[in-house]
Structures are given as C-alpha cells and as structure tokens.
C-alpha cells in the first residue's frame, strides 16, 4: 500500500520505455536494414536497357511492340 502509485508508475514507465525502444530496434534491424540492403544489391548490377529489351520482347509494352 505504501507508495502504491509510485511503485506502479515506475514499473510501467520502465516497461513502456523498454517495449517501445525494443519495437523500434526490432523494426530497424528486422525490416528497414534488410530492405535497404536488398535495394542496394539490386541496383548494383542493374542494366535498365537490358530490362527494357526483355520487357519489349515479352510484349507487355503497348507502344514498343516486340516486332
């Protein structure tokens, strides 16, 4: 009963801080960093002209038919 609110508040403040910081770190290292790496890897060896020719040959471009 003594210092009931103080004890509860301390516990919950610490918990809330840890949970929110934990969520942020998990997101950063689970989702944000892999995504940035994936994009870097993709564009390292990306040739847009080759991609364009492949799409043209497949026939999905209305203004650039494969003929």
């Amino acid at each position, binding site marked *: 009963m003594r210092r*009931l609110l103080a004890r509860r508040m301390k516990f919950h403040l610490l918990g809330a801080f840890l949970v929110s910081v934990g969520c942020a770190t998990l997101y950063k290292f689970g989702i944000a960093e892999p995504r940035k790496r*994936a*994009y870097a890897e*993709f564009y390292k060896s990306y040739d847009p002209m080759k*991609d364009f020719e492949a*799409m043209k040959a*497949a026939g999905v471009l209305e203004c650039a038919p494969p003929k």
Partner: protein
Amino acid sequence: MLASRVFGIVGRRSICTSLCLRAHGHAGVVKAEDYTLPAYVDRRDVPLPEVAFVRDLSAQQKALKEKEKASWSALSVDEKVELYRMKFNESYAEMNKGTNEWKTILGGVLFFLGLTGIIFIWQKHFMYGPIPHTFSEEWLSAQTKRMLDMRMNPVEGISAQWDFDKNEWKK
C-alpha cells in the same frame, strides 16, 4: 401578480419527482435510498471505506462494540478478528487473490470462434455460388507470367523470386 403566483405553483408541481410525491404523504421528509448513502467498497486504493461492512449489529456484536471502547489488551484474539470482520468484508490478501475467471473467458471465446467457423463452413458449402473465373489455374498462371514479364516488384516482390536466366522460381 396573480398570474405569476399561479405559474409558480404549476411549475413546482411539474418538476416533482416520484420521491417528492411520496414525501408529501410522510410529513415532507424523504427516507434516504440505499444508493444515496455512503457505501462500503473493497478496493486496494481505499484502505478505510466510508462505512463499516456490517451495518445492523446483533446484540452480541453490540456488546462487543461496547467492550471495544475499553482497553484493547482486554480483547481476545477471536474478539479482535470478529471486530475486524465487522468492519471489513475481505482482507487485502483475500481482495488481491486472483480468480480462475480467465479459464471461463478463454473457453467462451474459443467456443464462439468455433461456432463462427462452423457457420462459415456451412455458408461456403450451402449458400455461396461459384468463385469468379479469374481464379482458375490457367488464368492465375497467365496472370503471374504477365506480372513477371513486366518485372513487377523486382527488388523484394514477385519478380525477385523468379530466376529469369533459368526460367524457374528461385530456390
């Protein structure tokens, strides 16, 4: 002046509640309803409730209350416990004790989820018509081929899972 006096009387009658109407028969004093009086409550943050737990004491309890007015060292342990129980309903330990209510709640939730599942299955089997033709195997494979041809989502999405050189899904 006469009109305002009449209006005053009419106004007073129209806002008379049922309690007031009852009071007019009992010399104008209303008996206090239970919900208007201070109440006893078992709460962690209210250590001394407004009233004692036991309201109407028996003769034996009244005698004990008289004895309480004298020196407390004259009271036996049982009498002290009796006085405590007269004043409080549950001790802090009893109040804070957990129940098994969560089992009932979990059981009820799962039961109704299952019931909903049964309803859905019944509906799919007996009520709904056929799904659109765009969900057939041929349509889906043609759709996926078109998505890969136009290099949809090439970084992290579907075109990233296809190996364009070997013409197969990446392992």
